[in-house]
């Protein structure tokens, strides 16, 4: 695995580093609050927490430009927040309120924001990859210098759409950045139990797609690798894949007995917590004091409380609007 930390150390400013920490903490605290709201019955349906994987969304999305597009999965609160959808709109969406980022119609798995080119959370595993290929095709055909970043998990790699999308993006030289969040489990099925070849980056090369494997628990490594990949895509116009090794600390969704993995394994990965690790790194560098961290945590806590208030206060979409926007012109 490549570690970009060394090469980037001198380039990263304290301000930027603290921003990355702040962003990761926003995701962590938002999701902790979401779990609490779930247990109170304020959030229903499926709620897939990203806790443990925050470094990927924060690092990768920081390396993208505002004109680039993002396609994400059903575990996409972190991507939405890192992209700039407000915590208010995300929490309200999870509450199902009309002031949510999808008017409350999508819920946790379907966060959208057209203005941020955030093309949403896709809840059929692998279903977002062809969409990303098409977005990149549209950009290429219209001569726009944009990249489409597509997040997906290791589970999606078993889907035919992964292989078809790799092939088509490479065949047509489309600017897609495939970002695999390999958290070692397709729901409850371990990577070695669902893949004959567990090296995902290697698979990409079979389609003539350049690729690499990166430590997904290291936000600086994630950002550096993504910046390099973005640069490569902008220069070559060809797709690229990064496999991030990561781990999901929480259950797959909210109810999960976790029979498929051991406590020891979970604890070993938690020892590599991307936020705790980065905090230590920043302290060692002399960039983060107790007071700095307290300030960030206080800011984030206020934002989270504000998001809950916003969601609570949000209106329900009127039932009369149920069939609105099925088609542009309603069916008779």
């Amino acid at each position, binding site marked *: 695995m490549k570690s970009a930390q060394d090469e980037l150390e001198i380039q990263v400013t304290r301000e930027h580093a603290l921003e990355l920490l702040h962003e990761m903490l926003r995701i962590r605290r938002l999701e902790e609050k979401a779990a609490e709201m779930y247990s109170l019955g304020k959030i229903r349906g499926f709620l897939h927490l990203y806790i443990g994987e925050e470094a990927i969304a924060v690092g990768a999305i920081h390396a993208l430009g505002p004109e680039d597009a993002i396609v994400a999965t059903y575990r996409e609160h972190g991507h939405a927040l890192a992209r700039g959808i407000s915590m208010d709109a995300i929490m309200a969406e999870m509450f199902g309120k009309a002031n949510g980022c999808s008017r409350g119609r999508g819920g946790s798995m379907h966060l959208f924001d*057209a203005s941020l080119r955030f093309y949403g959370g896709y809840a059929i595993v692998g279903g977002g*990859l*062809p*969409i990303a*290929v*098409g977005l990149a095709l*549209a950009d290429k055909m219209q001569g726009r210098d944009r990249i489409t970043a597509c997040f997906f998990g290791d589970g999606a790699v078993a889907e*035919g759409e992964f292989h078809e999308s790799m092939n088509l993006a490479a065949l047509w030289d489309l600017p897609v950045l495939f970002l695999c969040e390999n958290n070692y489990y397709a729901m409850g099925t371990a990577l070695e139990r669902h893949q004959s070849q567990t090296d995902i980056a290697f698979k990409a090369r079979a389609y003539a797609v350049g690729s690499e494997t990166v430590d997904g628990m290291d936000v600086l490594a994630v950002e550096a690798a993504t910046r390099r990949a973005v640069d490569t895509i902008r220069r070559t116009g060809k797709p690229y894949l990064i496999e991030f090794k990561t781990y999901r600390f929480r259950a797959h969704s909210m109810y999960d007995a976790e029979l498929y993995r051991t406590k020891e394994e979970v604890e070993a990965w938690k020892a590599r917590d991307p936020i705790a690790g980065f905090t230590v790194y920043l302290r060692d560098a002399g960039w983060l004091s107790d007071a700095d961290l307290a300030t960030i945590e206080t800011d984030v806590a206020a934002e989270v409380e504000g998001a809950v208030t916003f969601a609570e206060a949000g209106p329900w979409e009127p039932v009369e609007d149920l069939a609105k926007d*099925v*088609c542009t012109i309603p069916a008779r």
Partner: protein
Amino acid sequence: MGTKIQTTYREAVKAALREALQNDPKVFLMGEDVGRYGGPYACSKGLLEEFGPERIRDTPLSESTFVGAGIGAALGGMRPIVEVMTVNFSLLSLDQVVNNAATLRHMSGGQFSVPVVVRLATGAGRQLAAQHSHTLEGWYAHIPGIKVLTPATVDDARRMLGAALLEPDPVFIFEHAMLYPMEGEMDETAGPADITRAVVRRPGRDVSLITYGGSLGKTLQAAEELVADGIEAEVLDLRVLRPLDVDSILATVAKTHRAVIIDESWRTGSFAAEISAQIMERGFDHLDCPVQRICSEEVPIPYPKHLEDAALPQPYKIVDAVRRMI
């Protein structure tokens, strides 16, 4: 009125594609063998030479991904026409249709349009056996969020594509494979078709024969045969399965008081069942007798001609049903 010319359904589709490509630089065609091969049904023959490989794109055999890419390209501001060679292969891309194309506008709270047009050949009748003879447009018509067109005439083949390209939502055009060599009249200059209404193709007073797509010709033939019995059948071509023009269905039933629905899909859960239910719910008082359905038999479509013929709706089956009814 414009100039009416005699041509084939295949040429009408091609003329529609050419016009669409000429009119809008954002329009492009992609699908299996649409380019060098000239289209599996020769509907795009010559278009690669005319418009180039950027706009006439041969795809790998990856239905799910090229339909999904069509959805993505539509989200990204293009105006894709995706050709899925046949409805049989579209089973591999159904997830993209049901979960993405049909949902994105509603699920995003109205933020996204998916202006993609998907064309598919459908239907049986060419001795292609069980895996190449499906009629599944009724499945597609089940899905809110998309529109389903079934051009049954040369003129509709020519003019429905233009109408579909004016829609901001996903439109699926089912072209019955038996129709491609059919000759008919088309209006070269009439512009996009009205895709909101069913059309009476033959007026009558005694019974309403309600059909669409590849069954229209068989139904018109049955109606002519019934003249010998003194029966004047009205033939309604639905043209659009979603959104369904229920008013036109009710209007013909109110006129004739009898209805037979001809639909090549399997009887159980067929689109014909939906039409029948609409008549029961909203037109029951008009009926003199129960609604009848002529559908495909409940078998995988067999290869030998006599068995395939027996499995599908045929004029004699329609005639028999009407005679029993009157």
